């Protein structure tokens, strides 16, 4: 049923349709609406679940860890500082192969304090063993949650659905919320592999000495790599069941004959598409490669799609301080070493802490990379504000 609703509401509705057994969260802007809406759904008796308001994100993550280990389907949501506070637990969840689903309403990280959007939060735990999939719009945000559970419970890897804070969470758009029956058909009941159960006593979270630790990390790494297939399969199944192309590893827009290819992820993709259309009217051929699955990073597919492209520019909302772009590096790494030097792969960081990324900004960026190869730069930086001696 198509509903004109807020992104957070769409996500809450979608999560509820997945029938999690345990939900635990701690309020943080801009995630709050999601859990508030879920709380309402539970309170109204539309969902039979244990909803737990806890004392911190750290506890929320720990509660879902425990609940998942006990065999429950679980859910939590957070952002920014909250995600960082969870970090220790998130690594643990992945290491223990607990198929937990988390929504990250992407937001910048302190200091300075900023409640607005960028991708620094989820980026900072990209190595934790969580699958990270990014939504472009609210429909996709909702749809990714159905898929997230399915992916998680097939791969026994936790899944983080990333959606841009405010830009999506607080935006009202028409979203199709499917019927429960359809969701139930698509998403079978959770069948845990190893739980804490007195009938079958198991040890979870054992410590591994140097004889075993590497293998355990290797296994997770390979499982992450192989989850690409699962993400693709689930995406196709979803497409078949719901008739929508939400999710998957990658998406493209006017890529085929493009002279310049923009690589990006998240909601900025909408603005990029607009820019591409505008530039097309001006006779420029610009295309888009949208990264849906940031982790696992679909390196081979990226290479396949970009190997014939001469001019590539990566725009991203996160930054490895002292090093540069993160997505940019991943894209560069997608090419075999010998081929990297043959082409221009430019990299821009944009929209940090909620700074708008406009079509003008993007058009200027395209113009610039047509002229020169930009190893790394900031887009839309107001240099007038910067005191030289602080640099």
């Amino acid at each position: 049923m198509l509903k004109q609703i807020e992104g957070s509401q769409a996500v809450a509705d979608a999560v509820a349709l997945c029938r999690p057994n345990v939900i635990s969260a701690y309020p943080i802007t801009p995630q709050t609406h999601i859990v508030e809406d879920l709380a309402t759904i539970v309170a109204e008796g539309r969902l039979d679940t244990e909803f737990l308001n806890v004392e911190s994100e750290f506890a929320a993550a720990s509660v879902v860890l425990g609940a998942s280990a006990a065999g429950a389907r679980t859910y939590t949501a957070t952002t920014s500082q909250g995600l960082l506070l969870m970090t220790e637990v998130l690594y643990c969840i992945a290491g223990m192969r607990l198929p937990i689903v988390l929504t990250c309403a992407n937001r910048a990280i302190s200091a300075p304090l900023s409640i607005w959007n960028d991708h620094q939060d989820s980026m900072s735990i990209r190595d934790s063993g969580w699958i990270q999939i990014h939504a472009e719009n609210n429909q996709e945000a909702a749809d990714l949650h159905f898929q997230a559970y399915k992916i998680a419970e097939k791969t026994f890897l936790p899944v983080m659905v990333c959606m841009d804070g405010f830009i999506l969470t607080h935006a009202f758009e028409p979203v199709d919320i499917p019927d429960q029956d359809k969701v139930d058909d698509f998403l079978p009941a959770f069948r845990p592999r190893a739980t804490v159960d007195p009938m079958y006593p198991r040890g979870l979270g054992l410590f591994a000495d140097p004889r075993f630790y590497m293998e355990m990390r290797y296994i997770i790494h390979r499982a992450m790599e192989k989850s690409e297939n699962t993400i693709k399969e689930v995406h196709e199944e979803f497409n078949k069941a719901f008739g929508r192309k939400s999710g998957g590893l990658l998406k493209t827009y006017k890529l085929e004959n493009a002279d310049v290819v923009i690589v990006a992820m998240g909601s900025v993709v909408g603005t990029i598409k607009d820019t591409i259309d505008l530039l097309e009217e001006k006779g420029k051929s610009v295309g888009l490669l949208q990264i849906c699955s940031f982790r696992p990073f679909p390196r081979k597919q990226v290479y396949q799609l970009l190997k014939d492209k001469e001019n590539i520019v990566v725009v991203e909302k996160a930054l490895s301080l002292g090093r540069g772009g993160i997505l940019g590096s991943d894209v560069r790494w997608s090419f075999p070493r010998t081929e990297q030097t043959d082409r221009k792969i430019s990299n821009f960081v944009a929209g940090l802490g909620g700074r708008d990324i406009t079509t003008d900004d993007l058009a200027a960026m395209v113009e610039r990379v047509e002229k020169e190869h930009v190893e790394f730069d900031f887009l839309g930086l107001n240099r007038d504000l910067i005191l030289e001696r602080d640099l």
Partner: protein
Amino acid sequence: MEKLPLGLALDLRKVVPYKTGSWRTQMPVHVMQTPPCTFSCPINNDIRGFLRILADKENFVDAWNILTRTNPLPAICGRVCPHPCEEGCNRRDLDYPLAINCAERAVGDYAIDKKLDHRKEHITPRQEKIAIVGSGPAGLSCAFHLAKRGFKVKIFEAEHQPGGMLRWGIPTFRLPREVLDYEINAILKLGIELECNVRVGVNIPMDQLTNEYKAVFLGMGASIGTRIEVPGDDAQGVYSGVEFLKEINSGKQIDLGKDVVIVGGGNTALDCARVAKRLGANTSIVYRRTRVEMPALSEEIDEALEERIMFRYHTNPTQILAEDGKVVGMLCVQMEMKEADASGRARPAAIAGSEKVIPADTIILATGQAVDYEGIELNKRDEKWISTDNYLQTSIPGVFAGGDAVLGLETVSAAIGQGLRAAQNIEDYIAGTLQNTLSRPPVVLSKDLNTIYYETQRRFSKQGLPVHERLKGMKEIYSNFEPEEIVKESDRCLSCGLCFQCNNCLMYCPDNAVNIISGTGKYTFDLDFCKGCGICSKECPCHYIHMTLE
């Protein structure tokens, strides 16, 4: 190698435990030790053993079986033994020693009540014959243990009834004759032949015994009453202690008159006094020294005092006064103590001019006993007692000896103990292995125990007849004890040096390396896992667990 499970979630039912035993540098071991009670008991009775059976199972039959492995006369010892075992009992450092003597009596009385019989250890009888001279506790004990071992045993007794001093010395209010007769009979029932009215050396020569028997045991006691020489002691109404008691114990009536004076400080003196008191006389005891030096049992002195027997300490007879050949009084002198003599006791000396007369109708000189060596030639010690080697063998090979005749005046239990050891030695002698000596396990002292685990508990105390009742006749002072009380008392035993299943080791081992073998109450150490921390040893209340270096 096992493949790593998903998320390292391991099925705990499949775990093969890691063996921590290799960390150990010291190892716990169970060491059964001798408790000091057993060590101090002249018979080395398994006191801990019989008390535990009483406490845990309330089983008087088994308790009797345990006791009679060493002591065939528990009902007797339970009445007359001065119980040095209690002196040694570790519990004295916690509150009061166990009332072992009472428990022993209760077990003995139970056997009498239930008419229990001894069993032989050797089913197949042995052909060797052994002669026992004297049927006092030493002779009876030796005969009993030899008979249990299957030997053919014959006792020669000079008197017309068996028992020695048990019958002729100790008065019936302390040792009823039914008790004596029962325990002697139970011994004889093992197939021991008893021939009374035969004085060896007089009625049959020693040579005959040594020829006819594989071995001989002499338990002749010290049956002759020796008196100190006091001028006038040939008067009528002067007896030796032994003589007097024998008369009384044979059922003879003696006219004591109004005042009876007893000279001496030993058990015989006390018994004479108590008997005289019961016969209605004014009784006093004359002794050179003080109570502390009296060789008599402290308990018996207490009872005598209760019975209003007068004690004249520091008093020594100098002359017995007679009229018409009949005693009328005794002239005594006051003594004072001088520095200790060779025996360690202060030496008394007369105070000049302190003489005074004590009126007396009868005077009993209970001042000593001696062995009757008539017709028996042996090496002697101090010219008085039979001399033996470490194996209780006398100067005649194959002739062993024990009891008062060897030890000097001692106790019933000492005589039984020697009878037991002589029996063991005779067995070895016959087997030709006399030189082998058994080493006893070490004695566990109270400092070795972890007394924290024991509760203080009231000690059992026996209640005697009120004095006026006692003095009415020769009734036994203490009637039989309530079995429940004895069971309760037995539970006070700390079980020094032997596990009593407290489960401390089981519960306190941090490595679960102590296991209980189900149904047996026995514990084992699992050395695959024991780290040798020593907790079990430290927390074992009774010091049954020791740590030894690997």
